[in-house]
């Protein structure tokens, strides 16, 4: 059952990701990206990362995509019209390089490689994935966790300052 579900989610993920890249309208791209994030959340659930699956939906499909859609509607964009020889060259080069990258990763995957030693540290039985992650996050990874809060603060201040525009003493409105 689980492998079939994985294959279904994987097919949906690849199809929606391709539509994100291929569709002309940015709003449609963003909506397909929401679908892609939701199928990725399903894959996380299958891999016993329940907390991450829920956070994926809340943070990515919820917050980040709302931000994207808000900016798209705010900018009121036309369709992405592309013509000309230069566009064809860039498109050909892009797909060629993508195929090369896929070939490289495929070669790496099919060649013999081995995992390091598997840790014996099993997540504690009887408690959920979120509880186990919380215990690790607030003990071993406490310092990076606190640094993260500073990162978010800096990003928040930076985003506000950048998006506010220039309203200097010279009276030049944004």
């Amino acid at each position, binding site marked *: 059952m*689980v492998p079939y579900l*994985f294959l279904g989610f994987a097919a949906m*993920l*690849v199809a929606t*990701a391709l539509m*994100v*890249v291929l569709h002309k309208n*940015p709003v449609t*791209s963003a909506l397909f*990206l929401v679908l892609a994030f939701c199928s990725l959340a399903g*894959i*996380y659930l*299958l*891999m016993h990362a329940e*907390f*991450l699956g829920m*956070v994926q939906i809340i*943070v*990515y499909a919820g917050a*980040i995509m709302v*931000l*994207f859609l808000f*900016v798209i509607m705010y*900018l009121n*964009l036309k369709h*992405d019209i592309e013509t000309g020889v230069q566009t064809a060259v*860039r498109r050909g*080069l*892009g*797909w060629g*390089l*993508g195929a090369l*990258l*896929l070939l490289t*990763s*495929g070669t790496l*995957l099919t060649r013999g490689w081995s*995992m*390091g030693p*598997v840790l*014996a*540290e*099993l*997540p504690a039985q009887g408690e959920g994935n979120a509880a*186990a*992650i919380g215990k*690790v*996050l607030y003990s071993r990874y406490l310092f*990076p966790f606190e640094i*993260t809060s500073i990162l*978010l603060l*800096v*990003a*928040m201040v*930076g985003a*506000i300052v*950048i*998006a506010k*525009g220039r309203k200097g003493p010279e009276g030049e409105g*944004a």
Partner: protein
Amino acid sequence: MIPLTWSLALSAVLFTIGVVGVLVRRNALVIFMSIELMLNAANLAFVAFAQQMNSLDGQIFVFFVMTVAAAEVAVGLAIIVNVFRLRETIFVDEINLLKG
């Protein structure tokens, strides 16, 4: 349990789609979405290895990557809004002021 190779192959495909999106499209917003796809491909590889190695550390890393992605999107979209105010376009091949 899902085989590790399947997850890694899916992660590679997703990353490649993101790279192609960055190379092919010229709308800065779609390029941003492609970058999100690449970050998610990396997250998928992290979760796959975490499952394979019976460890939670990979999932913690995904948590941090999500934080960085959220910060990146906020700042990046602010930059895009500002560029649109200045240049009336967000097509990256028309933003060529530094080209000389």
